[in-house]
């Protein structure tokens, strides 16, 4: 029996077959999947903000920021038996849900999240094999570690698989 492992907002989780991993309602947030196809293990982070320097809290929720979440997801995968050199990535999200004429920095958070995620991945030398980012629609994503396919559902544009 396969289960669906859920990833909440600002959350990180791991999955291995036959289970799949899922996060719902990504807007400006970015869902990052790192996976090792040989060891058949994957992990997902639901990132809200680009950089942990934005945090004003004494304790840091690592899953919330692109810089800390990707490192933490990487470490979790290595600890669970993934091969660091074999890791690959897929990402989705980073939409601009609302269009305002006066654009403050927070309004551009989706694209900024995507940029930062890409920087972190290249710093860790993890190839980004597929992405579905930007636009102005929310996304629900599901990753299957067995076939490494990422299924993306949107309200207006239907479902696609990358």
């Amino acid at each position, binding site marked *: 029996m396969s289960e669906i492992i859920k990833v*909440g*907002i*600002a959350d990180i989780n791991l999955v291995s077959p036959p289970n799949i991993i899922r996060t*719902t*309602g*990504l*807007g*400006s*947030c970015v869902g990052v999947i790192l996976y090792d196809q040989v060891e058949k293990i994957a992990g997902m982070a639901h990132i*809200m*903000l680009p950089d942990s320097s*934005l*945090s*004003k*809290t004494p304790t840091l*929720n690592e899953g*919330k920021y692109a810089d800390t979440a990707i490192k933490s997801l990487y470490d979790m995968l290595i600890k669970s038996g993934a091969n660091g050199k074999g890791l690959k990535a897929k990402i989705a999200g980073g*939409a601009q*849900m*609302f*269009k*305002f*004429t*006066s654009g403050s920095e*927070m309004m551009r*958070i989706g694209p900024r999240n995507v940029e930062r995620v890409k920087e972190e991945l290249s710093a860790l030398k993890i190839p980004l094999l597929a992405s579905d980012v930007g636009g*102005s*629609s*929310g*996304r*629900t994503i599901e990753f299957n570690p067995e076939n490494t396919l990422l299924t993306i559902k949107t*309200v*207006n544009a239907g479902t696609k698989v990358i």
Partner: protein
Amino acid sequence: MDFLKIQPIHLDVLREIGNIGAGHAATALSTMLNKAVDMKVPSVNVISFEEISEMVGGAENVVASVFLRIVGDAPGCMFFMLPVEQAEQLLEDLLVGQTVNLTSGDDSDISLSALQEVGNILSGSYLTSFSDFTGLNLQPSVPATSIDMAGAILSFGLLEISTVSDYAIVIDTAFTDIERQDEVKGHFFLLPDPLSFSKIFHALGVPLDE
């Protein structure tokens, strides 16, 4: 913003803001529709980011929403949100003789701008009374509309809060059609930015213990 310093009286103050604000908005809605609109007693909750989407049926649930930023003395976000079918019903009541389909994906649709205008009027009346009640200078930004997943929409309003907390204080008022009391028609969410709470409490004479 330290949630530990929040006393029951502070929650009462926030509930009263919701009560007065949404009361004005309900009156405006009732006038627009020319029928009775009822509102529930506002709830004020300190909730996790996950839970906020649950209030409108889950992160994936598709809703029609109007969002605006509050600028001025106590910045924050405001959402008017309702299930798509009920938004279509509301707009058909307003645009007599027209069939409204909000999910056709046509941005030029008159119904979208009508929805934006409804949101504008309602949140404007909410905000004006909030401003009058607190004496704070508060102005709405131009509203923006979106028909999409509740989680994707609400998370946008949580960005400011997320830099200081994993929880948000949400002032939620649910509306019902008076003829069908059990059915919630829509929600008004007021999410003050973290730094705004002390200003609101100060303005109303119940400062937080610093």
